[in-house]
């Protein structure tokens, strides 16, 4: 079931920064949300990269920025060896055939006023994927791929269950034959049993079509199951990344550790162990200085409050951004000033 080894970068983001102007209240001064703060990540060919973190940490922003659905304030984006940071809209629209996205909410991601057929056929038409005559056949084929009956074509989204809708969304992404799909919490809204069905489908597509995924999720269990590597974000920054098993079995960053401990495990014996979770996620409008995580970190020291920790190689394909990591005696690694 494990896909073949990655072959090199397909989609890369370098030092991406994105801020939003927060909705202003009456007369309040402008405030900016740093949704992405110097974020770099790479998805290799045929790789599935997980992106985890708490709500509002910038996962979706990262995914959308990489697809240029949002324009980054700084940084660059490369796709298949081409710098697409400033690609013109026309070119970008062509590229979208190869870069797709699946959304979290299966209820909100389909136009409620279009039948499944219309939804899928429109994409095929707009991108001239196939001759017009073949559109009906192509739609039927797509439905079959995602495991929906042909009769689904004539129905509206409201007539489907969440899982079925998510399949329609996937079929829509597949209609243009993409190389990479950003799955933005594609299974989070689904019940466990349906979640399993969709994961199964995504895995099958990965096998058959050689797809790469950027898989955004807040469920560590799912990421561990589905991804090869994962990146952990906290308040707009990447705090740690590495192969999933190593990352979750032996987290290096205190935040990853906290996440890991808080993630419920369906095992009453294990679950009752006390979890070490403190504090709330601070407002992204006013992130704490230094390491963003320090106010919640049980191990924080003075330097954590002042200096932003650099991203360091921890070996085994792992990277971590924590001051304490050095103090644990791994000196000699790449140092940073």
């Amino acid at each position, binding site marked *: 079931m494990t896909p073949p080894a990655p072959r090199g970068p397909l989609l890369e983001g370098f030092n991406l920064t994105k801020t939003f102007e927060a909705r202003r209240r009456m007369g309040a001064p402008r405030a900016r949300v740093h949704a992405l703060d110097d974020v770099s990540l790479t998805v290799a060919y045929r790789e599935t990269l997980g992106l985890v973190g708490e709500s509002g940490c910038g996962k979706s922003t990262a995914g*959308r920025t990489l*697809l240029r*659905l949002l324009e980054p304030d700084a940084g660059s984006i490369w796709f298949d060896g081409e710098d697409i940071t400033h690609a013109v809209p026309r070119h*970008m*629209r*062509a*590229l*979208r*055939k190869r*870069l*797709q*996205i699946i*959304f*979290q*909410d299966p209820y*909100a*991601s*389909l*136009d*409620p*006023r*279009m*039948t499944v*057929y*219309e939804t899928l*056929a*429109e*994409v095929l*038409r*707009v*991108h001239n994927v196939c001759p*017009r005559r073949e*559109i*009906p*056949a192509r*739609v*039927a084929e797509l439905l079959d791929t995602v495991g929906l009956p*042909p*009769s689904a*074509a*004539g129905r509206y989204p409201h007539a489907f269950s969440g899982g079925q809708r998510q399949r329609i*969304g996937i079929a*829509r992404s597949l209609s*243009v034959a993409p190389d990479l799909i950003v799955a933005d919490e594609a299974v989070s809204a689904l019940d466990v049993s349906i979640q399993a069905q969709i994961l199964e489908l995504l895995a099958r597509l990965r096998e058959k079509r050689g797809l790469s995924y950027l898989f955004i999720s807040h469920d560590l269990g799912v990421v561990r199951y589905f991804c090869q590597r994962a990146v952990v974000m906290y308040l707009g920054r990447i705090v740690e990344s590495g192969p999933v098993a190593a990352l979750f079995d032996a987290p290096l960053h205190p935040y990853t550790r906290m996440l890991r401990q808080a993630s419920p495990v369906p095992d009453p014996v294990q679950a009752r162990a006390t979890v070490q979770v403190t504090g709330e996620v601070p407002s992204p409008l006013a992130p704490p200085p230094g390491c963003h995580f320090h106010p919640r970190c049980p191990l924080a020291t003075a330097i954590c409050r002042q200096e932003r920790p650099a991203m360091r190689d921890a070996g085994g394909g792992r990277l971590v951004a924590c001051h304490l990591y050095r103090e644990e005696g791994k000196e000699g690694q790449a140092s940073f000033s």
Partner: protein
Amino acid sequence: MPRPAGSAAGRLARKLWRIATANITIEAGIVLFLLVVAVAVFAPLIATHDPLDQDLFERLGTPSTEHWLGTDSFGRDIFSRIVFGARISLVIGLSAVLTAMVVGSFLGVLSGYLGGWVDQLVGQATNILLAFPSLILGLMVVAFLGPSMINLIAAIALATVPQFVRVARAPTVALRDRDYIQACRALGFSPLRTMLRHVLPNIWPEILVMATLWLATAIRVEASLAFIGLGVKPPTPTWGGMIREGFENILTSLWLAIFPSLAILVVVFALNLIGDGLRDALDPRLRKDE
């Protein structure tokens, strides 16, 4: 079974039919409204007199068997004038509101979807339009373009446009961040396509409800403009014009102003039935507990 791609009109017709028969309120409204339309269309068959025929010696007659609703100050038959007046009043109301609806919702969607300077510009223009009292706006348009039904319609439409811009803009802003609209961008659809094929169809229920409300207002505004003498050219009967004429004799012949007001009431009633029905029919939460 894949369905043929074409026949957008057929699809729309089917949708309209589904909505039209969604609940009894809408049905009642539509029947009533169609009745008024029928009266307008078949006015010559229904009217008992020539609506323009003056009888200078029978002015301001009270309702009688000869003149069911009495006569006006020129001795014209009020019933016949109301019947014929339905034509113009409906045309004015419908065309003004349709124009305002099309222009307003397009601008609203445009400004809501694109945001940025387009939004600023449309917003400012809307504010400016809103800053003119509709009466003044009407007066200016008619004084500027000269009096004609088209201009009257233009004046009323212009005064109504901002309302539709607002109605269309707010849900567009909300929709813009919805996943399925985002998906359109992700799929490489052009903004125009996204707006016309995906945003607009999803906000039109709200626009439609608004339109039913404003249609009534448009018919009434004609009365106000007629009041300051800027209605439709005489002797063409319109309800607004009749109210204005009636007002001049209101102390002696109250019914002159009341009957055309009642005619407006019927239309307003029909439209509000439709509007209220639509609101319920299109609101999933309200639909659930039906």
